[in-house]
């Protein structure tokens, strides 16, 4: 057996030119397969951690997925807001430890504007319990003094080239359909958040009172004709918000979550809805993750192509090895030995392919990890071969072995029909 393996290795070494290409193609498919699987797992994890530490998300009664979409991902618009009175009731619930109310609806060049309270910077968590950090500047104060202050997410500042001290003008409406601008009440950037890889990066944060102030002289989504309140005047009005879009709630005790949820859902004065973000994110991932699963399917195909290549190369080399196999037969190798020789070669190539695939993956990971984390907030765990990845690897290995059974069988038939001399 050891002799056979030595011969297999030496023979493979002799044909290294072709075989290295085969190993490379297996390596690339393994890299692709595991890389995409890794990315899928880590992307899901990052997605699931877009918010963390939030026990309930409260909004008007819509679908839970929709509520997550606009509250966590700040996508699309809320069809209904909730009244300030109801919001107060939720925030003052005895089980609530902290609550971050926010109002959506305006935008800055396509980036959503989030009206909220300074608690946002204190309590909001993402990833594995990470707090928001300011890259520079300070949070808005939430007081009348700094009414028109804005804190930008990292991507907003980056893409629009804004820095602390710059002035910005918000637009009414969200996304690309924003029509009219709140040009009479410009804001000043006071701080920029460090990148988080979550939708926070794409948000512009202002105080709830500021949202109220810029809409004082508005009615039904348009400036009231012939009536306007100048920016400074606005401070004299009651700037208590009339509505908010959603509230992120942290409870004193996680055990109370279902009770609190039931209490909010059955709130009598208004139709409210409280959802558990984990459950809703799971539902949302079912939709978003479809693309990731399709990608995985493609990479499985790529791996199959790599292994078919292995089979083709080993089969094609049989003719050129006919002589070698016949000589081995004549010096005492049995057809079984010939079979083992061929299968060992397949196993050797697959193993080398998998190992170099893992190497490539590690290299690619090292190269791409900072970039992925910075821009997509995906934390790649380089050395974490989870159960799934190991299963994938084992099935690649087994398929490689299986792919060399056919050449092995052919070789062993060939060596029998050739007798002691190859028939060319």
């Amino acid at each position: 057996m050891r002799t056979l393996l030595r011969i297999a290795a030496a023979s493979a070494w002799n044909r290294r030119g072709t075989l290295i290409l085969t190993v490379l193609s297996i390596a690339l498919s393994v890299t692709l397969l595991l890389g995409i699987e890794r990315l899928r797992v880590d992307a899901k994890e990052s997605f699931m951690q877009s918010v963390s530490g939030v026990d309930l998300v409260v909004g008007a009664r819509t679908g839970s997925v929709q509520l997550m979409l606009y509250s966590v991902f700040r996508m699309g618009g809320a069809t209904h807001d909730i009244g300030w009175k109801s919001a107060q009731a939720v925030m003052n619930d005895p089980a609530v430890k902290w609550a971050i109310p926010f109002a959506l609806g305006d935008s800055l060049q396509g980036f959503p504007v989030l009206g909220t309270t300074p608690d946002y910077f204190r309590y909001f968590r993402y990833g594995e319990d990470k707090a928001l950090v300011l890259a520079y500047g300070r949070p808005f104060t939430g007081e009348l003094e700094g009414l028109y202050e804005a804190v930008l997410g990292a991507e907003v500042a980056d893409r629009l080239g804004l820095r602390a001290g710059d002035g910005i003008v918000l637009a009414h409406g969200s996304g690309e359909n924003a029509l009219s601008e709140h040009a009479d009440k410009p804001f000043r950037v006071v701080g920029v958040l460090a990148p988080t890889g979550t939708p926070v990066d794409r948000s512009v944060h202002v105080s709830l009172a500021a949202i109220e102030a810029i809409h004082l002289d508005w009615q039904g989504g348009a400036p009231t004709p012939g009536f306007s309140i100048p920016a400074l005047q606005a401070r004299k009005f009651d700037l208590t918000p009339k509505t908010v879009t959603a509230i992120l709630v942290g409870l004193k005790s996680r055990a109370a979550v279902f009770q609190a949820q039931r209490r909010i859902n059955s709130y009598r004065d208004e139709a409210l809805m409280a959802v558990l973000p984990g459950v809703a994110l799971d539902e949302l991932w079912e939709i978003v993750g479809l693309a990731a699963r399709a990608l995985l399917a493609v990479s499985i195909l790529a791996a199959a192509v790599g292994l078919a290549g292995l089979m083709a190369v080993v089969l094609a080399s049989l003719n050129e090895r006919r002589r070698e196999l016949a000589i081995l037969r004549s010096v005492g190798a049995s057809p079984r030995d010939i079979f083992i020789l061929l299968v060992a070669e397949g196993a050797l190539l697959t193993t080398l392919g998998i190992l170099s695939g893992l190497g490539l993956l590690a290299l690619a990971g090292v190269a791409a990890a900072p970039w992925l984390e910075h821009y997509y907030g995906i934390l790649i765990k380089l050395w974490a071969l989870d159960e799934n990845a190991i299963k994938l690897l084992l099935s690649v290995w087994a398929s490689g072995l299986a792919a060399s059974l056919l050449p092995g069988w052919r070789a062993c038939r060939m060596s029998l029909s050739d007798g002691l001399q190859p028939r060319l």
Partner: protein
Amino acid sequence: MVSIAAANTVDNAYPAAPASPQFALTMRDMVFAWGKASPCLDVSAFELSAREQLFLCGPSGSGKSTFLNLAAGVLVPDAGSLCLLGEELGALSAIRRDRFRVDHVGFVFQNFNLIPWMSVLENTLLPCRFSRRRRQRASRATSPEAEAARLLRALDLDANLWRQQAMKLSVGQQQRVAAARALLGCPEIIIADEPTSSLDADRQLIFLELLQNECASSGAALLFVSHDERLAARFHHSARLPELNRVKSGGSS
């Protein structure tokens, strides 16, 4: 056919070794056909004594290679008896036959004898890699490597060639390496299928003499096949396959 029943001095330490067989190879009413075709060979009687050196000739396509494949147990007769060293090959399982062959038979072919990417020495040592008996017998005096070196030297191969890859050798040198390999570990019978056909006339004779001498000194029987009848003069015994074979259709010169 004459046979010299020489005193058998073959060492029988190995359990599978037949007990001092008088004949290296015997055939009785042996019939063989390729697949479903009409028989290719039908030999009523053939004997090769231990230590005998026999020249077997016949025109191309007369079935010489088929005959040797049968003698070596690569092919199995369809009817009749074929005994190699007293062992009925047809009665052995395929695996036992493979073992038996490597333990007791050495081969030299017309060409393509060596694995091109292996060194000369490794090529020579191949039988010892697959057969424990050959390894044991090769290490009786010293070690397999030393025995291989002795044979290579006896076959006039320079020591500086031993580490070379086989493909870098001339055809004549390759044939001598093949002979050394066939002889290593003292198999009881050497089967040579036209080993001189790709050599020029001078080298043919030199090679044949080296091979015959080594067979004689190791006590191996030699079954030497060629279509070149001139070589018959170099042997005490010779036979013509078309005369042995009762099937008359095959064969064209």
